[in-house]
């Protein structure tokens, strides 16, 4: 039956080639879109977790806080010790966020002042990513500050100038002067104009001695599924260790909008692929139906010599499958070659800034999961069978005598 189906498909070579081409193109583009979606998801996940960590520890009352005090984790040292005990090897960034007024000689701005202390590897990464000139405040300094480049321009201050910080209603000094030692840049322009960074001890002295607002925990990198498993395990352990005194959130809970966006990508792509396959299905219906119409007499003879209705239907369905699976094979091969070629990473010259703005890394790594390949092939087989159902039904209903008399 398959030999007959293959030969019948190629009786009308040009028509079948067009259909094979359409199916192959749909399979190709579906897999390529899946691959780039996967690259985007992985890239966004990577950027987010590199910036903000896999887990976020905040005060249990931080989300509903109306004042600065409610955002604080008072026993920062105890929390730090528990993290080190439960998650040895994890990298930690400790931060104290203080609403403040920052002023140059002539201008001032309201900012979100951050006192931050990174583990060494994280500090290096932060520096590489965001420092555009000068240096970061030294970890133990009490009088050094770095500002977003746009903020520095707005305050009309340069490296070496004095910057004055006012943090009223807080528990530390409440006000201090700092030397501008570094300029920072962030992908989001809104961050650039609000960023002011001190050392953690500097911020604690200014606003809340011994306290912190948050701990960002960075787990070792790896395959997404493995990382997700580690994140869950780490979260469970920390939640048990801390009880209700602090809130432990994974990256999904800390960035729900981004998590929702990432979760939506696969279903949206799948629906888009389904539409593409429906369009391809129209070509398949056309080819299979025309093949039937041109061979009504032949089908009449096949029924006359003893093929029953189901056999005839299977013949039509097998022709459709041959057509679609041929196209699918080509689509898989070309898409596989392209994705394999790009899987080592690619970047789009001139687009780095835009990609950063959207939370994407400069280099993307396309890949396709087994599930996506299976989904694509399932769509292809589904299209082949659905598209051939009606022509197959018509063929099965042919009356042999009338069919053999048919004039094309």
């Amino acid at each position, binding site marked *: 039956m398959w030999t*007959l189906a293959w*030969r019948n498909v190629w009786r009308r070579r040009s028509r079948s080639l067009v259909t094979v081409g359409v199916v192959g193109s749909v399979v190709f583009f579906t897999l390529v879109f899946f691959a780039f979606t996967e690259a985007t998801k992985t890239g966004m996940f990577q950027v987010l977790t590199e910036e903000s960590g896999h887990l976020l520890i905040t005060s249990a009352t931080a989300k509903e806080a109306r004042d600065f005090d409610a955002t604080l984790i008072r026993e920062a040292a105890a929390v730090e010790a528990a993290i080190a005990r439960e998650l040895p090897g994890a990298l930690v960034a400790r931060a104290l966020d203080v609403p403040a007024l920052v002023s140059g000689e002539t201008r001032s701005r309201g900012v979100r002042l951050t006192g931050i202390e990174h583990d060494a590897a994280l500090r290096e990464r932060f520096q590489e990513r965001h420092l555009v000139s000068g240096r970061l405040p030294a970890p133990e300094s009490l009088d050094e500050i770095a500002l977003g480049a746009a903020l520095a321009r707005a305050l009309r201050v340069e490296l070496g100038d004095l910057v004055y910080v006012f943090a009223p209603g807080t528990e530390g000094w409440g006000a201090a002067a700092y030397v501008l030692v570094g300029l920072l840049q962030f992908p989001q322009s809104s961050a650039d104009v609000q960023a002011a960074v001190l050392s953690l001890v500097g911020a604690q002295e200014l606003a809340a001695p011994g306290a912190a607002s948050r701990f960002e925990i960075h787990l070792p990198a790896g395959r997404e599924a493995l990382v997700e498993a580690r994140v869950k395990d780490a979260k469970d352990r920390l939640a048990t260790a801390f009880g209700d005194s602090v809130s432990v959130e994974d990256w999904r809970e800390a960035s729900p909008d981004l998590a929702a966006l990432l979760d939506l990508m696969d279903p949206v792509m799948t629906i888009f692929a389904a539409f593409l396959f429906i369009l391809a299905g129209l070509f398949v219906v056309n080819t299979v139906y025309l093949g039937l119409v041109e061979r009504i007499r032949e089908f009449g*003879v096949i029924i006359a*010599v*003893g*093929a029953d*209705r189901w056999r005839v239907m299977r013949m039509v369905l097998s022709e459709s499958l041959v057509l679609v699976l041929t196209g699918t094979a080509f689509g898989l091969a070309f898409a596989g070659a392209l994705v394999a070629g790009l899987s080592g990473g690619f970047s789009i010259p001139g687009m780095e800034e835009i990609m950063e703005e959207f939370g994407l890394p400069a280099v993307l790594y396309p890949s396709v999961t087994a599930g996506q390949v299976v989904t694509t092939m399932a769509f292809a087989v589904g299209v082949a069978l659905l598209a051939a159902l009606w022509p197959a039904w018509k063929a099965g209903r042919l009356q042999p*005598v009338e069919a053999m008399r048919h004039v094309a």
Partner: protein
Amino acid sequence: MKPLLRAVRLSKVYTEGGVSTHALNEVDLEVAPAEFTAIAGPSGSGKSTLLHLLGCLDRPTSGETWLGDRRTDRLDPAASARLRLFEIGFVFQAYNLIPVLTALENAAFVLELRGVPRRERLAKAMEALEALGIAHLADRKPNQLSGGQQQRVAVARALAAAPRVVLADEPTANLDSQTGRSLIEHMKRLNAERGVTFVFSTHDPRLLEHVTRIVRLEDGRVVDDERRPAA
């Protein structure tokens, strides 16, 4: 001897656009095993209709058809198909070979429908082609064969499956005289040597010379039933 094929008061009426045509009118017929029988008559006499009804390709308006002990006029489509597949061989006027299959594959087609394993069905098909003197054309496609050769492949297709009866509808109509004669001689030899029952519909005098029985139809009725000694 029990008849192999039987028609009992068989009638077929076609109605199209409100106009009824009586293609067959209470035809009675019995065909014994190993007969070499022609159903003759002018165009429109009902020859092909009778053959189609005997071969379960169509249903009569009234009357009965029998194959051996089995009544066949009221079978459902699946049962009819099964009967045609296993019991009845067909040869059509227009050869009706499958263009993408070779002569050998065409000859093996009915066996393939039956589910016979590949090696076995090709061997039987080759045997049938040899019996018809065209084994050397086994690898050719129909468009590479002459009309006579194609018709012999069609006969081989019918014979390879070893049916109880071969029904041939105007098998020599599209053949020249020499080719037609050659085909008839092959079929006659198979009838004589293997006892294959042949029933033809024809108005070809060449074919009528060789048959042992001629049933003549006119306006859907049997007007003559002549038996002859073997030629």
